[in-house]
C-alpha cells in the first residue's frame, strides 16, 4: 500500500509535480521504494527520469508533493537526506584534473566521512568498484568505463542507504556495460538502488522492480520478472506460407484473435515471393492466445503450403512502446 508508512519503506514520493516554465516534467508522480529493492526507472528520453532523480537527490526541489527518504523530507532536511544517499548524475561529471585517490579523498571529506574511517572507506570503495589499479591516474585520462566506476566509487563513499544512478550505462561499450551491470548487481545486494535507464533489457538483468514513466506520468509499476508477462499482452506467431500472397494475407487477417499481421523479412535469399515462394508472416494476438492451430487450419483450408510455424514472445521493446502508447 503506497502511502502507509511502514518501517521498510525507504523512499516515499507522493503527488510530486515539477514544471520548467510551461513544460510539465513530472505530473503528480507517486511511488515508494522498499529497503533492499533495486528499482529501475524506465522511460524514453525526456520522460522525466532525470528530473525525478534530481529531486530525490536534493539537487532540485519539486513544485508540489512530498518526497521522503529514510523518513526525512527532502526539502526540510536536505542535508541529512543528502548524507544518506549516494548519487551518480548522468554523464558522470568528475573533476578531470584530479587524481582518482585525490578526488575520492576530497569527496569523502566533503561527505563528512570521519577522518579515522576515511582511508578504510576509500579503500573499500576502490575495491568494490575495481578501480584500485587506477587510483594514481588523473581522471581526465581514464576511459569512459573507468570514469563510470570512479563515479560509483564516489557514490559509495558515505555508505549510502540509497544509491541513485542516472543512466549509468550510457556511453559504455558492450563489454563495459556487461561489467558495470555485474558491478551494480553486486552493489545492489546490500543496499537500495534506484537507477534510470531507457534500455529495457537492463531492467530485466539488474532490477528487482520497475517503474515505467512516460511524459511525466507513471505508466506502470511492477516487479521486474512480471514486466514481460504483464505488459506483454499477447504473443507473436511466425509462419512461412507458400500461396497467392493476397489471398493468404486476407485469410490470415480473418483468423479470430489476430490483432496485427505483418510480412516479416523472408528467410534467406528473397526473390519476388521469398525463398522458394515462401513468405514469412508475423501475427500477433490480442490476448494470451495460441494462434498456431488456427493458422494451421487456415492454411490447410486454403490448400497452401506451410513450412514453419513457431511462437515467439514479443520483444520487450514492442511491449514497452505498447505500454507508453507510442506506435512505431
Amino acid at each position, binding site marked *: 500500500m503506497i502511502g502507509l508508512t511502514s518501517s521498510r519503506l525507504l523512499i516515499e514520493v507522493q503527488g510530486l509535480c515539477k514544471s*520548467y*516554465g510551461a513544460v510539465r516534467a513530472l505530473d503528480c508522480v507517486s511511488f515508494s521504494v522498499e529497503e533492499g529493492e533495486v528499482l529501475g526507472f524506465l522511460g524514453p528520453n525526456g520522460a522525466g527520469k532525470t528530473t525525478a532523480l*534530481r529531486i530525490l*537527490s*536534493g*539537487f*532540485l*526541489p519539486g513544485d508540489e508533493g512530498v518526497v521522503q527518504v529514510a523518513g526525512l523530507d527532502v526539502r526540510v532536511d536536505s*542535508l*541529512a537526506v*543528502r*548524507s544518506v*544517499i549516494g*548519487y551518480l*548524475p548522468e*554523464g558522470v*561529471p*568528475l*573533476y*578531470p*584534473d*584530479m587524481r582518482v585517490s585525490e578526488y575520492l579523498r*576530497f*569527496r569523502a*571529506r*566533503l*561527505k*563528512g566521512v570521519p577522518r579515522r574511517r576515511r582511508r578504510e572507506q576509500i579503500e573499500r570503495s576502490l575495491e568494490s568498484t575495481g578501480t584500485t589499479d587506477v587510483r594514481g591516474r588523473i581522471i581526465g585520462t581514464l576511459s569512459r568505463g573507468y570514469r563510470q566506476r570512479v563515479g560509483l566509487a*564516489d557514490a559509495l563513499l558515505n555508505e549510502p542507504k540509497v544509491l541513485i544512478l542516472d543512466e549509468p550505462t550510457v556511453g559504455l561499450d558492450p563489454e563495459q556495460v556487461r561489467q558495470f551491470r555485474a558491478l551494480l548487481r553486486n552493489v545492489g545486494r546490500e543496499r537500495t538502488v534506484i537507477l534510470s535507464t531507457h534500455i529495457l533489457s537492463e531492467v530485466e538483468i539488474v532490477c528487482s522492480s520497475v517503474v515505467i514513466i512516460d511524459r511525466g506520468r507513471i505508466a506502470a509499476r511492477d516487479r521486474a520478472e512480471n514486466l514481460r508477462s504483464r505488459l506483454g499482452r499477447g504473443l507473436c506467431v511466425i509462419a512461412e506460407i507458400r500461396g497467392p500472397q493476397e489471398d493468404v494475407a486476407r485469410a490470415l487477417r480473418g483468423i479470430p484473435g489476430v490483432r496485427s499481421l505483418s510480412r516479416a523479412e523472408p528467410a534467406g535469399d528473397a526473390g519476388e515471393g521469398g525463398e522458394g515462394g515462401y513468405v514469412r508472416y508475423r501475427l500477433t494476438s490480442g490476448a494470451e492466445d495460441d494462434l498456431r492451430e488456427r493458422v494451421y487450419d487456415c492454411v490447410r483450408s486454403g490448400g497452401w503450403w506451410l513450412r514453419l510455424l513457431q511462437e515467439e514472445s514479443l520483444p520487450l521493446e514492442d511491449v514497452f512502446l505498447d505500454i507508453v502508447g507510442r506506435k512505431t
Partner: protein
Amino acid sequence: MRTLSATWTIFLRELGGFFLSPVAYVVTFLFVFANGWVFYQNCVGWEHHPQQVALVVRSLFSFALFWVVPISPLLTMKLFAEEKRTGTLEMLMTAPVTETAVVLGKFLAAHVFYMLIWSTLLLYVFTLHVLGRPHGPDWGPVWAIYTGLFFLGLMTNSLGLLASSLSRNQLVAAVLALTGNLGFLIVALGSWISYESSDLQRFFEYLSFSSHFSQDYTRGIIDVRYLAYYAVWAALFLFLSIRFVEARKWR
C-alpha cells in the same frame, strides 16, 4: 561546524586547483614579468635621484594597482562557470554541503591565490632592502598598501565569483567582472569632471579605489572607511553569489 569543515575542504581543493590551472600560471607569469620590467626601468631611471628607493617603491605599486582589474576576473571566472558547464556542480551540490560553504570555500581560495600573486612584489621591495642598505625602503607604506590590496581583493574577487555564478561560460563571467572592476576604477573620472564642486569631487573619490591608493596607502595611511567600503561590497557580492547558486531551484 559541518559548514566550516566543508568550507575548508572546498577551499583546499580549489586552491590546489589553481596550481593545476594554466590560467593561474599565465596570469602570475605576466604579472611578475611586467612588474619586474617596470621595477628595473625605474631603478635605472632614478639611479642618481636622492629619493630613488622611495620613488621606485611608490611607482612599482601604483603601476601594479591596475592589475587588480584583470587578475580577479581571471582567477575567479572558472569557479562556478566551469562547474556548471561540465555538470560537476550537480556532484557538488548533492553532497551534504550548503551553498554558503561552497561559495565561501571558493572565494577564500581565490583570495589566497590573489594575495600570493601580490606577494611576489615583496621580492622587489626586499631586493631594495638588501641592496639599498643603509637607505632601504620604508616598509610602513608597503604594509599599508598590502592591507589596502587585501580588502580591495575582497571586493573584486567576490565580484568575480558573482559573475562566475551568473554564467556557464568562463569568458562571459570574466568580461562581466572586468566591466564591474573597470566601473569601480573609472568613477574617479567623475571627480575630474566635477572638480569645481568639492563635495561631489570627494564623493567620486570615495567611490573609486584608484584614488584611495594614490592618496592614502602609498603614503602609509590606512583609512578604515575605505576598508569598510570594500568589505560591504564584498558581503553583498558573496550574498548574491550564494543566492545565484541556489537559483537553479527557483526555475
